[in-house]
């Protein structure tokens, strides 16, 4: 090799070393035509160009399509550090450790007044690359998650708020703003720009609804106890929805723990849903006191339909009276569909493929 060739090769090596690391797969989530054929690459960070799940969710705003992300493997541990295999076991263990809990009075119940902001992004995967979420999921839910990532990579996102759906349980946890504590109950409230949240946590010892009357609820049913100044919560009867790491079923149960430290409500939540997760998922939470207490920024009641419009299912018919659409009618909304985002993405995939053929 001549001196010039050596110099050229050295410059080339230097330039390559300065570039972001090349993807391990020859194609990735942005370029693949059939993500289902790439299963062996789903746990490779390079398959998502090192994007975190949140960066994928924001890809429709990225100034450059397919931008390299900031995900770091191992940035946050997603698996629960606890040895428990069910929420009931977890909650009961903490209840026994707390000696049956602390019975507060109006004078001793912790003061958690104020409006808080925060929650935690780690509930949605945090700074780990999207591949780290895949490692926590059962095979079927891996496919659902990667289908979601592929849709996001092509800007075909589904959002509950787009269709004026509730945000569901995980959103009610993440977007909690006010924690109103009395000896018998704790209320957790939140006000988003298109919905409001409320959770009732019964700390009066009455426990959960009898099994015969249990059913899935948007924010579940929560019972709890005080362990000194810390609140422990068990939530069941959660309606399966999309949120958190990916999505969850009606089987989801959670255990939370909260305490106030200065101007912060610190917390943690462990998710138990064995149909979705290969092991329980854990994240820490932190809500900071909002000192921006201007009256014009007080919480308010909001409804998404104010600007997105009412349901298409109920309409005025040709006779001028209210009527409802039935299965088979155009614009019929199927309330029994447990995964409307899945239905959306399956239809979106087909339409997008046809759209690409027209280009």
């Amino acid at each position, binding site marked *: 090799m001549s001196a010039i060739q050596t110099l050229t090769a050295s410059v080339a090596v230097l330039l390559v070393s300065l570039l972001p690391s090349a993807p391990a797969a020859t194609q990735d989530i942005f370029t693949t035509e059939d993500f289902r054929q790439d299963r062996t690459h789903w746990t490779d960070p390079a398959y998502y160009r090192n994007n975190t799940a*949140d960066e994928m969710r924001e890809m429709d705003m*990225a100034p*450059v399509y397919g931008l390299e992300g*900031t995900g770091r493997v191992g940035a946050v541990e997603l698996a629960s550090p606890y040895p428990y295999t069910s929420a009931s076991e977890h909650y009961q263990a903490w209840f026994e450790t707390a000696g049956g809990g602390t019975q507060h009075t109006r004078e001793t119940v912790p003061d958690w007044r104020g409006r808080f902001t925060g929650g935690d*992004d780690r509930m949605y995967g945090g700074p780990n690359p999207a591949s780290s979420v895949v490692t926590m999921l059962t095979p079927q839910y891996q496919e659902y998650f990667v289908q979601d990532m592929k849709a996001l990579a092509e800007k075909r996102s589904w*959002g509950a708020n787009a269709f004026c759906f509730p945000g569901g349980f995980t959103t009610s946890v993440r977007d909690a703003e006010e924690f109103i504590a009395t000896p018998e109950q704790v209320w957790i409230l939140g006000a988003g720009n*298109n919905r409001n949240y409320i959770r009732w946590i019964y700390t009066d010892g009455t426990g959960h609804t009898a099994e015969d009357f249990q059913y899935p609820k948007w924010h579940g049913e929560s019972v709890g106890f005080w362990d000194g100044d810390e609140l422990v919560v068990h939530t069941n009867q959660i309606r399966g929805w999309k949120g958190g790491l990916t999505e969850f079923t009606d089987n989801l149960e959670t255990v939370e723990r909260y305490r106030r430290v200065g101007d912060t409500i610190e917390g943690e939540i462990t998710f138990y849903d064995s149909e979705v997760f290969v092991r329980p998922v854990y994240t820490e939470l932190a809500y900071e006191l909002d000192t921006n207490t201007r009256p014009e*920024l007080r919480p308010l009641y909001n409804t998404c339909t104010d*600007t997105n419009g009412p349901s298409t299912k109920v309409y005025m018919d040709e006779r001028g009276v209210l009527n409802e659409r039935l299965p088979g009618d155009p614009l019929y909304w199927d309330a029994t569909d447990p995964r409307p985002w899945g239905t959306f993405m399956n239809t979106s995939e087909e339409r997008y493929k046809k759209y690409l053929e027209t280009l």
Partner: protein
Amino acid sequence: MRRLSGVGLLSVVMSAVVSGPASSHHSHSMFDHEQEVTIIGTVTAFSFRNPHGFLFVDVEEKNGETVNYWIEMAPIPRMIQRGIGIKTFQPGDVITVNMYPLSDGRPGGSYTTIVTDDGKTYE
């Protein structure tokens, strides 16, 4: 597909885009975030509502036709934090709007800045 060069520049651009918890917005895919356009026109209506405010602006196009543009604004709390109140934009006001246009070509977009006739900029 356009590509940027240099890891440092990529990091800066990405950090400017990702600014908080995801899943709070319906979707941004209806807007073309790879370009910004500017329109100058007259306010016809301002809807100060949640989840999003909307501004309607009459713009005289190059062919002399007047087209009403639909501009998506922020949620109420964010507008207030940026100094925008229900009376900030009145019918008849002449404004300059910088926006990410609708990607399907219809007249409208998601605003980035609005400049009023007296020179005040709202972000």
